[in-house]
Structures are given as structure tokens and as C-alpha cells.
């Protein structure tokens, strides 16, 4: 699967009409400079040789050099990735919580006005372009009410949260130890997830501050994605609520909330979990737009910036990382599924 994905990305960037190097220089290409860049990036070799070089490099974790300044694409992506991960996690939490809650409410009020209202809400959020919702929130919550900051990832006047395990790689001893362990060069050991780092640092102020900055982007993305969860939870819960064991639980006099969330939802949850895995791809797509709207310094924004520079090696690298990320998440969901569903054993 991952192999096919890598091949597809290679085909798109190298084989589709449009020579990356020529595109990079646009129309006023200097033939000497073009040849030099081709040589530097290994694009003057035959296609099959490029393909094997490309696969080999990726297995070594090398995503190539940027066409802009020949710096390492892998390192740039490595530093942009935590921002996207943090946004993705929080958006998914919002989407799933909101979607499951509304879905349960809809299934309980099946075919009554409340159900219709929730369904319409789900359909409408699905039809909103995520960046438009972002702008509307920026206008209202940010610029109008001044509740939340409208962009960026952290308050520029406060130092970025760093976990206590932060190691300054400029000291010779730690450089030797860390780089021999991780081989990632000039990267510190903080997770890069500001909410987590600030907690590890024990600084509640920074934690709240990072949540404030995270709030609007993840709300935007979470709202747009919640529709899918509403729909799925609604149909699954509707079927589960009619099963005998739910009636039995009610007959025993359990409270309705306990019957719904403790009994029925547990059984209707597995398909929803599968959806979390599938929706992750959509979420990352939406993250590109959300990050651009909110100047969120993640992988999506990195792609967009690189498109403007016509930096095709960087685009290729970022697309690969997005694909790998989705594959890892779907693998994790499969494993979790096997753990949660006793009928499936690995």
C-alpha cells in the first residue's frame, strides 16, 4: 500500500506533463542553471534510476533537497509536523465528541423535529468550505468579540513551551549522545505539541495560552468534520437502540443516560471508530486549508508556501509524509479495533 503510494507520488511529480525544474524557473530559464539543478537533484539520470534512488532515499528517511535552497526537506517537515499533529488531534476530538453526541441525540429523537434539525446541521456543516468557516470565526470570535487570537500558533511575546527534557543540542556532550541516538541533527527533544510541552513544563499559563491559539482552528476543522460522525452515529445508534439488550437494560430500571451511553453506544461505537480512521485523510486535507487560513505553521502551510516557490521536491516530501501519516493512523485504528472487538483477534 505504502509502496503504491510512493510510486503514485513519484509518477505525479516526475511523469506528469510539466518538468519540475523548468516549472521552478518559470519562463526565463537559464539553460546552464537548469542543467546544474538537474544534476544537483539527480534529475538528469534515466527515469528508472531516479525511481530507485527515490525509493532508496525514502527508506533511509531522506526526503531530498529543497529546490529553493538545497536544504534538507526532511528537517523542514520534521519541524512543521507537530503543529499539524496537534491541530489534527484536537480537531478530531472536537469532531468525534460533537458528532457522536449529536448523533445519539438524533437517533433518540428519530424522525422528530430535533432529529431533522441535527441532520440539517450535519449536512450544512459538510457543505461549508472549511476556510470560509475559519474566516467567519475570525470575523466574529476574533475581530468582533476579541475572545480568541485570529492566527499564529502561540503568543509571540511568550517563550515557546519546552518540556523539561529539552536538550540544547549546541552543547557538545548532548549533541554526541542525541545525534548518535536519533540522527536528526539540530532538533530538540520537546514533543513540539505546545499543549503537551507546556504541561510537561508545568506552566499553566502557557497551557491556556496554547489552547487559546488552538481553539479556533481546531473548532473550524472539527465542525466541518462532525457531520460525517453525526450521520454514522445516528444510523448505528438507531439500530442498536432497538435491540433486545437495550430493552432489557431499560427494563432493569437503569437510567436512560446509562442505557444510551453505557450500553448502546459501546456497541454502536466500532463503526464510528473505523470512520475516525477514514476521516483522518479528509481531516488532513482540511488541515491544509485551515492552516493557511490561520497562519498555522504546520505541514499544510508548508506545502502551500512551497507551491508559491515552485519547490517540487518539498511538495513531494510533504505529500509523502501526509500519506505515511494516514497509513500509520489507519494501522493504529485497525489495531485498536482488534483490541476493542473481542471477535477479532490478531
Amino acid at each position, binding site marked *: *500500500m505504502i509502496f*503504491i*503510494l510512493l510510486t*503514485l*507520488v513519484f509518477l*505525479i*511529480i516526475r511523469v*506528469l*506533463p*510539466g518538468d*519540475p525544474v523548468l*516549472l521552478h524557473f518559470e519562463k526565463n530559464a537559464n539553460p546552464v542553471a537548469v542543467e546544474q539543478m538537474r544534476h544537483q537533484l539527480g534529475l538528469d539520470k534515466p527515469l528508472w534510476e531516479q525511481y530507485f534512488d527515490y525509493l532508496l532515499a525514502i527508506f533511509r528517511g531522506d526526503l531530498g533537497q529543497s529546490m529553493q535552497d538545497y536544504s534538507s526537506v526532511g528537517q523542514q517537515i520534521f519541524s512543521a509536523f507537530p503543529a499539524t499533529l496537534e491541530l489534527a488531534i484536537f480537531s478530531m476530538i472536537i469532531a468525534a465528541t460533537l458528532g457522536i453526541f449529536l448523533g445519539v441525540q438524533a437517533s433518540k429523537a428519530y*424522525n422528530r423535529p430535533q432529529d*431533522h434539525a441535527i441532520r440539517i446541521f450535519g*449536512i*450544512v456543516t*459538510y*457543505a*461549508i*468550505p*472549511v*476556510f*470560509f468557516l475559519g*474566516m*467567519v470565526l*475570525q*470575523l466574529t470570535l476574533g*475581530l468582533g468579540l476579541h475572545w480568541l487570537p*485570529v492566527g499564529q500558533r502561540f503568543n509571540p511575546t511568550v517563550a515557546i513551551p519546552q518540556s523539561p527534557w529539552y536538550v540544547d543540542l549546541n552543547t557538545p556532550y548532548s549533541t554526541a549522545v542525541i545525534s548518535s541516538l536519533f540522527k536528526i541533527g539540530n532538533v530538540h527533544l520537546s514533543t513540539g505539541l505546545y499543549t503537551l510541552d507546556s504541561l510537561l513544563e508545568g506552566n499553566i499559563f502557557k497551557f491556556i495560552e496554547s489552547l487559546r491559539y488552538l481553539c479556533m482552528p481546531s473548532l473550524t476543522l472539527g465542525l466541518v468534520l462532525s457531520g460525517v460522525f453525526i450521520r454514522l452515529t445516528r*444510523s448505528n445508534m*438507531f439500530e442498536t437502540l432497538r435491540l433486545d439488550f437495550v430493552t432489557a437494560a431499560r427494563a432493569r430500571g437503569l437510567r436512560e443516560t446509562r442505557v444510551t451511553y453505557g450500553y448502546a453506544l459501546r456497541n454502536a461505537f466500532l463503526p464510528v471508530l473505523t470512520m475516525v480512521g477514514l476521516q483522518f*485523510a*479528509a*481531516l*488532513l*486535507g*482540511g488541515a*491544509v*486549508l485551515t492552516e*493557511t*487560513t490561520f497562519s498555522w505553521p504546520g505541514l499544510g502551510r508548508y*506545502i*502551500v508556501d512551497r*507551491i*508559491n516557490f515552485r519547490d*517540487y521536491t518539498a*511538495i*513531494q516530501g*510533504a*505529500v509523502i509524509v*501526509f*500519506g505515511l501519516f*494516514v*497509513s500509520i493512523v*489507519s494501522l493504529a485504528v485497525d489495531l485498536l479495533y482488534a483490541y476493542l472487538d473481542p471477535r477479532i483477534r490478531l
Partner: protein
Amino acid sequence: MKKPVRKRSSFNNQLLKIGSLSKRGLAGWLIIVGAIFVIAIIVMTGISPWIRPYDPIAINVGPILAPPSNQHLFGTNDLGQDVFSRVLSGGGVMLQVSLLSVIVCLAIGVPLGLFASYAGGIPDRVVGLVMDSLYAFPGLVLAIAIAAMLGRGVINMALSIAVVYVPSYFRVIRSQVLSIKETSYIEAADAIGARNRTILSRYVLPNIVPSIVVVATVNFADAILTAAGLTFIGLGVPVTVPDWGLDLTSGQRLLTSGAWWVISYPGLMIILLALGFTLMGEGLSELLNPRLEQ
């Protein structure tokens, strides 16, 4: 020899009568309301050259960033363009891109799904694997990568969107074909010596048309949102074409000046258009998959 009479599928009968639609509860109404949104926007875009008060791409037809007024119903943007005229004419790009991408998807996805899954074996495996990999990929990221390589323009946008959505057609068609393949009427057709081509076009295809219609409607909505996203990233049409996506993009830097009208109206139009198709898709899938209607 008597020509075989082709029975019109009940699907057509059901859906072509609006009267019967309104009797089908929420699902019918979803389709009607969705269709009204879509048709209204198509008509509005079609007749916009005759009804718009100003040239949508002419600059300085009014003051810069004027709020909505009688002269400029939806206000003006930072170039002094009339937002109302731009809203009237701005749907063309989205409609063209979504229509083109759906056509490309149909032209590639339907035959691919039919042949690969009917043939089974290695073709099915190979095509299925490629489609699954494409499907699992973040669609917008893939579309961005392809559009970045192909360059700007309506056709390139449509192609990059189509690549992303072909797998959804393939998957739906495959699952349908696999179950239809096992039915006794296919076996009967095979037994009387019908060629594979005939079986596919006369027996299998008519049965999967409803599913294809649902996928295509949802695809329309997705294509519109993806096209808006591509435009937002800067991979859309040139600025000389009025387009809602472009207006949203250029309106973002005006947010701090409080010019809500520059983004709100084009944004609402995109929502209405995508909503129209989503409602239709929702209604259609409920009508054609009545598992929940009890």
C-alpha cells in the same frame, strides 16, 4: 423477430415526477430543495450578463471597500469592484470545474469498475489496490500536488479533482457488480450465450445506475468544495475571471478592515451550491437505500 422490450427502470419513474417526490417525506423534500438551489444558481450564472448592474471585472466602478448600499447591494471590494455583480457571475468556474470533473470521473470510473470487477482475478486485484491507495490518501493534498504540476485553469482543476474521486466510483461500482454477478439472471444470461459486453451493458449497468447517480451527486458537492480549496491555495483560475473562490481568497486580507461583505456573499453562494448537491445526494441515497425507513 421481436425486439426485446426494455423495461424502464422503476428508478426513472420514481425520480422524474416531482409530485411523487413530495409525497416521499423528508428524503423527497431534500431532493426538491437541493435541486431548487442548484437550478437557481445555474440560471443566475447563465443570465448574469444581462442582469448584473456592473461589469464584474471592471475596477473602480464605485468607492473602495464601500459597505452594502443602494448603489452597490453587496458593497464593493478593495479594487472598487461591485461585489453583487461578481456574485452573480462568479459561479461559472465552480460549475464548469465540477461538471467536467464528474464527467471525467464517470468516463474513467464506471468502465474501470465494471470491467475490473466483472473480470475478477488479477485485473480486479491490481486496479483495486491502486484505487484503494488513492482512496486512502488525503484527497485535497493529492489534488493540490497534481494541480501544482499541471498548472492553473479550469481543465487542470477538473482533472486533479477527478483523479481524487475516481476511487469512490470504483468502490461503489465494484461492490454492486460483485453482488449482481452472483444473481441468477446474470447466470441465465450467461447460459443463453450472451456476450460479456451485452451482459455488462444490458444487465449489470442498469442495476447500478442508481448508485452511480448518488455518488455523482455527492461528487458534485465535493468537487465544488475542492475547487474552492484549490483556488484558496492559489491554484485556481486567473484573476481576470470572476470566481467566488477567488473573492474569498482576496477577501481574507481585508478581514482586519472589517469588510465582511467581501467574503460573506461569495462564501454563502459556495455553501448554497454545495448544499444543493449534498441535499440531493442525501435524499437520493435515502430513497434508494430505504434500510432506515421503517
